[in-house]
């Protein structure tokens, strides 16, 4: 398969097609008759999937550097170029978003009835924006994609959301925009400093990375600028209050995209930009402790708050905050295991939370309510939905054998050396996550069927099954056989650790010697 792909010069055009195709599809969708909008969208989504899935084979996991690299100068005089590339950190996220696109389009087949053309056009724009963030290796291009995908999300929540969608949409945009406004100044300042000494003004990631040394004197405020932007997106503990609102009000497609990919841009940003550029400050004892503590607070706090949420989507939103806390803990664990664990949590959280949102969307399409108390005893009426929900619930709380456990286990065991007490505290979430997940599943699917309205709702139809079953198969496959995923990210993880190794302060526990 790999040689077939290289024979058709796959690595040269794959990223451009992935980015360009949805953009071209937007006019096609907007000016097509209303009925055919979703078919075009689905067609484009399928082609995107077919093209994108090739990355799985074409990506050479032995090489640790950037692959599929393209470097075309865009604004000549000022070092801005259309520079894209994929490496171990981003290959899984690109694959995940490519896989999710057709599912997202398909899941909103019934749910979206007004202004369909606009909706599918926005999904296409959002997809390009998301992919762009993960493949951009030019900081200017990265910033453009980072901000540009706010608009499709804003309109998606604003127009197709539910009750107080305006508040949620505005809060979402303001939070992210205010969070990342300092990042632009930081980027320009970095390029200016590097240009002053090396004479080369270029926003290329490699150029800035090689001269990261020069940025040390301003490391503190530059890192804070980046960290603020990414922390809002993660969302790290104090900056998370936009997520529950955005999730609750967004339509299914919106919250799936939000949960599966948008949240990962923050953690990806830390791994790609914030830490490698300013390792001295980022990994110093105090910053490390602060970030890890915030991550752990986020984990436990969100799990506890999730327990008392009346609204199902809000509950899953808080669970996402908790899962993303794991990713941050993994990043600051600064060992190969914890970083790979972090990436695995990013992928598996995408699968399980994506599936959860799809199912809640299906419930919403049937009963038009997200209040847990309105449901009860659905297992008898919709056995398939109940089984799928229970399996996904257990994968979300990290049952070993399903995908959640792999990531969480690696993060915890990897970070244990550096932060034993914090990992101990974080592990208690194992109980709380079981608490909120099982309690809500019980109140929705088990218990007595009291509400007569629930009697009539039908079980999953073929289309809905086609959305859910692949995700469940993926969950079980990743849970039992994560080796191929780990192989693909190990190159980048090792390179990342070697890069920050000289700067790392001594961990609490000595490294375990290798015993077989």
């Amino acid at each position, binding site marked *: 398969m790999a040689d077939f792909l290289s024979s058709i010069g796959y690595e040269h055009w794959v990223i451009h097609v992935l980015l360009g195709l949805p953009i071209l599809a937007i006019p096609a969708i907007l000016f097509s008759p209303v009925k055919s909008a979703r078919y075009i969208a689905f067609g484009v989504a399928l082609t995107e999937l077919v093209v994108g899935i090739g990355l799985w084979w074409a990506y050479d996991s032995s090489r640790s550097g950037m692959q599929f690299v393209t470097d075309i100068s865009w604004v000549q*005089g000022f070092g801005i170029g259309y520079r894209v590339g994929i490496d171990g950190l981003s290959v899984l996220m690109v694959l995940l978003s490519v896989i999710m696109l057709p599912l997202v389009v398909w899941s909103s087949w019934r749910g979206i009835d007004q202004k369909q053309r606009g909706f599918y056009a926005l999904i296409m724009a959002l997809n390009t924006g998301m992919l762009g963030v993960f493949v951009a290796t030019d900081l200017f291009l990265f910033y453009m994609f980072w901000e540009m995908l706010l608009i499709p999300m804003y309109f998606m929540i604003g127009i197709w959301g539910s009750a107080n969608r305006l508040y949620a*949409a505005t809060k979402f945009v303001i939070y992210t925009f205010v969070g990342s406004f300092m990042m632009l100044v930081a980027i320009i*300042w970095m390029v*200016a400093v590097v240009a002053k000494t090396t004479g080369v003004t270029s926003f290329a990631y490699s150029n800035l990375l090689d001269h990261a040394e020069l940025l040390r004197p301003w490391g503190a405020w530059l890192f804070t600028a980046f960290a603020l932007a990414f922390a809002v997106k993660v969302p790290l503990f104090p900056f998370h209050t936009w997520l529950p609102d955005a999730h609750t009000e967004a339509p299914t497609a919106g919250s799936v995209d939000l949960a599966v990919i948008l949240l990962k841009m923050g953690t990806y940003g830390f791994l790609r930009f914030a830490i490698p550029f300013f390792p001295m400050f980022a990994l110093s004892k105090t910053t490390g402790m602060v970030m890890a503590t915030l991550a752990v607070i986020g984990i436990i706090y969100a799990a506890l708050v999730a327990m008392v949420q009346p609204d199902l989507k809000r509950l899953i939103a808080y669970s996402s905050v908790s899962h993303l806390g794991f990713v941050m803990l993994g990043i600051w664990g600064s060992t190969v295991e914890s970083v790979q664990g972090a990436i695995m949590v990013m992928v598996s959280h995408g699968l399980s939370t994506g599936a959860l949102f799809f199912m809640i969307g299906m419930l919403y399409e049937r009963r038009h309510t997200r209040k847990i108390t309105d449901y009860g005893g659905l297992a008898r009426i919709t056995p398939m939905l109940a089984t799928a929900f229970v399996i996904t619930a257990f994968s979300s709380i990290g049952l070993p054998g399903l995908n959640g456990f792999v990531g969480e286990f690696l993060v915890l065991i990897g970070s244990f050396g550096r932060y034993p007490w914090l990992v101990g505290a974080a592990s208690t979430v194992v109980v709380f996550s079981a608490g909120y997940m099982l309690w809500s599943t019980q109140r929705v699917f088990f218990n007595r069927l009291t509400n007569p309205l629930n009697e009539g709702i039908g079980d999953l139809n073929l289309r809905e099954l086609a959305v859910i079953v692949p995700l469940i198969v993926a969950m079980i496959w990743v849970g039992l056989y994560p080796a191929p995923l780990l192989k693909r990210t190990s190159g980048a993880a090792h390179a990342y650790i070697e890069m920050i190794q000289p700067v790392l302060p001594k961990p609490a526990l000595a490294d375990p010697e290798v015993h077989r």
Partner: protein
Amino acid sequence: MGIDLSSPGGATLALLPEILLTFWALVVLLFVAWRHRDGYDMRTAGALSLLGYISAVAATGWLAWRGAHADGLSFMIALDGFRFASDALLLWIAGAVTILSVRWLIRQGILAPEYYPLLMLATVGMMLLAGAADLITLFLGLEVMSISVYILAGFDRTRRASAEAALKYFLIGAFASGFLLYGIALTYGATGQFNFGLIGAQFAATPPTLMAKLGMGMILIGFAFKVAAVPFHAWAPDVYEGAPTPITAFMASGIKAAAFLALARVLSEVFPAMVELWRPVVFGLAVVTILIGNLSALSQTSMKRMLAYSAIAHAGYLFLALWAHSDEGTAAVLVYLLAYSITTIAAFGILASIERAGARTVLLTDLEGLFAVRPFASMGLSVCMLSLLGFPGTFGFIGKWFLLSAALHQGQTVLPVIAMVGSAISIGYYLPVVLAMTLKPTRTRQAHQTIRFPRPARIAVAICIFAILLLGVWPNTVLNFATQKAVQLRQSALPLGNR
């Protein structure tokens, strides 16, 4: 081709665009004297004035193409790329405002075609101000521009607000030009010269005396008023709201552009030696203008008033480029002014058509649900808002980025941070506009039925929106053009010896 400015032939050649435009103004004036009764006359007067602008642009283009530069001292008017660029920018703005105002005047029932000659003379004044190489030309250009705009501000005689706007603008304007003039007098007293180059050389030679500092201060105050920097900004919101909408657009983009271009030239040619003196002043003005400009805009309900405060805030951003005092800074001024003027013209163009004849100003709540009735207009206004906000993908972002990098390359970090704090605050009043139009339902059934989109205005606005998006993604040509012109300005600013 070299032009000897001291000879009359050379002078007329150098001043060709201005002279042509004045000629056309008189032609239109004569035409208006006879035919001023109905809409047709208004339209032909408008068309004639457009011809005037096109001929002036052609003249500027010809001069630039021939590579005109001054032999020896550039006597009264500067002859360099920067001036030609400024003239092109100002003429473009005037042309666009004329297109917007043709149909608008008829709808508002102001059948006074002398509007167009005044506009043309104001543009001549602006070109002289932006291109001045001599304090006298500077003063004259400023006054010609100001006096015509005083009248234009009060053009809608039937409405008290317009008259009040004119009065306020006139009183404070005259007061400010008094300061400017006193500054010129003191500078003249300190150096004995009026010509920029000579004054610059004089200040470079001898350390600045008290009188020179006072002179510079006064001139800066005069310019600060014209640009509506904060302590001197109080007139702007009232005059912008009172004046007729096309004139507001003209003031927000044209006058601000001319003032900034002149200030850029003055700071780089007249006071380069005293950089350490005026930088703190520019710094202070920038900080205060950005913050108060953005904050005050938050609590506005009327669109024109909100855009007035946003204009003040953008003036604050432009001070960053002036503070930079480098080639990149000057180029940033040019680019940002182009970006800002395109966006403002488009925004006011759409607002003008939303205004009903004689009704009060357009409030934010009047825009609700516009997307349902007028999708393209609301999308256009949203693009303008995003461009003003500096959202990536729009030309406004490129302008803001260019500004920030100009300041940052000079090692200034505080101002860019304040600028970004300002733009973060600005989302508080730009986003609700987008929100109101697209996401909110229309308040009443026949909310937007009275909107008329005249064809010429629609085309002009469409071109602007397309330009915002295109240049937002592909800004190369504009950036390189601006950098060349900035280099030429620096060359002409060099003391006579090593030109």
